[in-house]
């Protein structure tokens, strides 16, 4: 089993049945005589689950649901079924994932280590027709979806072996993080910025996103000076993992596939670390931690407390993960697509739990 996946145990009988299902799906798909590429098997792929409101702009429709109720909402969606929805916050990110897939398929035509985008929404199934029509309109490569008609999608996230979950609903995101799945709440940027069409760019904050919030706790409880001393003393001790570490890992694995084919300079995935830490006093520990995990990050920016907005404007990531709403607001204002990771002491209703990552299996 690929180690891109969180831990799942399947019996051999399930695996045999799964292989059979897989063979039939292959047959059906090949038979459709379409040029569309076949979706990869979930166990091998990097699965990204997006909710309908992050993929498409459903602000107006949401208002109808809130003001007039479920029945009117479903009716409205059915009436406008053939009108494609407008793109949402996660739309550029999904398009960038598809670009990476195209490059991967060219280099490794038979490999299944690709991005697999799944639509995971607790919208009612009847709204599904409009969603599918919209997906067709933009020719997105989303073949799997889950419309739970009101139930929480968290159980299904695990069933689909999800590596990353993006939603507009912070409660669901929090549930996912507590269940050990990397997740973030997406926000629309306040202005439009032109993004790269050939390279997927992902920016991460450090503490409480890639790493645990242990150092942030020290800052909040004992102040910056104690923090600097502590970090210097513990320079060689790796930090504990944060909720998004696995996703960075998954990106790294795909990046290596380009490096081995001599495509390092032309790699369509680029990762950034954008942290308020300063390089001199607390940066070393971060870099050493990443090294100890065997992970590379393409660019690391230490801001020493300076605002992140302007720098992110230069980078233009397709998505930026941070745990503090203060930074999210700053990034949003200057046009960066930001995603909030509700983890750690930076949150208002912090529950004080350390993340339990699902056990890795060899």
């Amino acid at each position, binding site marked *: 089993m690929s180690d891109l996946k969180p831990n799942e145990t399947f019996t051999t009988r399930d695996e045999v049945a799964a292989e059979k299902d897989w063979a039939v799906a292959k047959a059906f798909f090949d*038979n459709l005589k379409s040029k569309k590429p076949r979706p990869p098997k979930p166990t091998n792929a990097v699965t990204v689950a997006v909710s309908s409101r992050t993929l498409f702009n459903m602000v107006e429709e949401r208002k109808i649901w809130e003001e007039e109720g479920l029945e009117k909402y479903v009716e409205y969606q059915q009436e406008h079924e053939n009108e494609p929805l407008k793109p949402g916050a996660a739309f550029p990110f999904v398009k960038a994932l598809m670009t990476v897939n195209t490059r991967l398929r060219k280099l490794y035509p038979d490999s299944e280590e690709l991005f697999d985008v799944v639509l995971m929404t607790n919208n009612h199934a009847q709204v599904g027709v409009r969603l599918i029509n919209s997906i067709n309109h933009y020719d997105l490569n989303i*073949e799997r979806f889950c419309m739970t008609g009101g139930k929480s999608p968290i159980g299904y996230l695990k069933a689909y072996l999800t590596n990353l979950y993006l939603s507009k609903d912070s409660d669901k995101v929090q549930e996912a993080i507590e269940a050990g799945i990397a997740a973030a709440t997406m926000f629309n940027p306040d202005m439009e910025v032109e993004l790269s069409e050939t390279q997927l760019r992902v920016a991460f904050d450090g503490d409480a996103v890639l790493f645990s919030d242990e150092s942030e706790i020290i800052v909040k409880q004992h102040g910056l000076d104690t923090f600097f001393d502590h970090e210097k003393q513990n320079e060689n001790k790796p930090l504990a993992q944060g909720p998004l570490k696995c996703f960075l890992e998954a990106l790294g694995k795909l990046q290596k596939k380009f490096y081995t084919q001599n495509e390092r300079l032309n790699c369509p995935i680029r990762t950034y670390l954008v942290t308020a830490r300063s390089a001199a006093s607390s940066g070393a520990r971060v870099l050493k931690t990443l090294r100890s995990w065997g992970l590379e990050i393409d660019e690391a920016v230490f801001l020493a407390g300076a605002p992140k907005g302007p720098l992110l404007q230069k980078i233009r990531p397709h998505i930026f993960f941070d745990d503090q709403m203060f930074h999210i607001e700053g990034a949003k204002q200057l046009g960066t697509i930001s995603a909030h990771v509700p983890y750690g002491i930076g949150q208002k209703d912090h529950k004080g739990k350390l993340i339990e990552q699902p056990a890795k299996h060899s």
Partner: protein
Amino acid sequence: MAVSCHGMFDLDSCNVQPDSCALPKGAAFAFIKAVQTVNQRLLGLSEKNKTLLFEVVLLGKDCEEHIKLNIFDSAKHYGLEIDKFYFCSSDNLIGTLQANHINLFLSPDKDDVYSVLKAGVPAALLYQQAEQQAINRLKVLFSGDLIGLSADSMVCLKDRGFTDVHIQNFKAAKECLREFVVRIGEMKRMFGHEGSPLHTSLMTVWGSRDVCASALKTLRGWGLDVDEAFCLAGATCGPILALLQPHIVWDNGLHNLKGVAPLLSS
């Protein structure tokens, strides 16, 4: 609407002693309780709904005399509202179903379900639920891969190695499904979207998203708005089914076709 179910009690595990234990519950048990809830709610809404109610009939295949008695007693013991009991031999299964105008045959046995479907009697699978589910909702799952294919596109299945006979059977199964869907749709419309005791889901395991969209629209055309939809595009359905825990699964027999298994391994 009469429903005949064979999987009511777990006949194998009980020690046969004339007047002792009530038989332990089988796969259909939760289903019957859920059906009773639906019936209650329908009547609660209006007396006119009497025509829409489920009528459950218990069909025992190849039962010995003392088992028959046990079945009667156990049904009473658990307070199950079973209107009629039929007992027949396995050869006469289809004949019995047809003679008594059964609208839907349910069994946990895939072979039985498939042979009944082939004969033109609607049949569906009783799902083996992991534990006794909350009985205030009846959950029905439709397998959408064939629903999404129109009669014309079914012909393309011939290229995949399915014979004319298979395709004929698929068409017959789809027709049976349609009758059931129309009735369920009528019942469901009595309740709103929220708090309904009837919960329907659609799952396409192999088809692309367009097949799923087409299945959604077909079902809607027959009068049923499903609550949940899943498009797996080849992913395994095991984990999703385990979460969904439906009572009945309308699997058009495609997965279980004995003749198809060797074709699938190619």
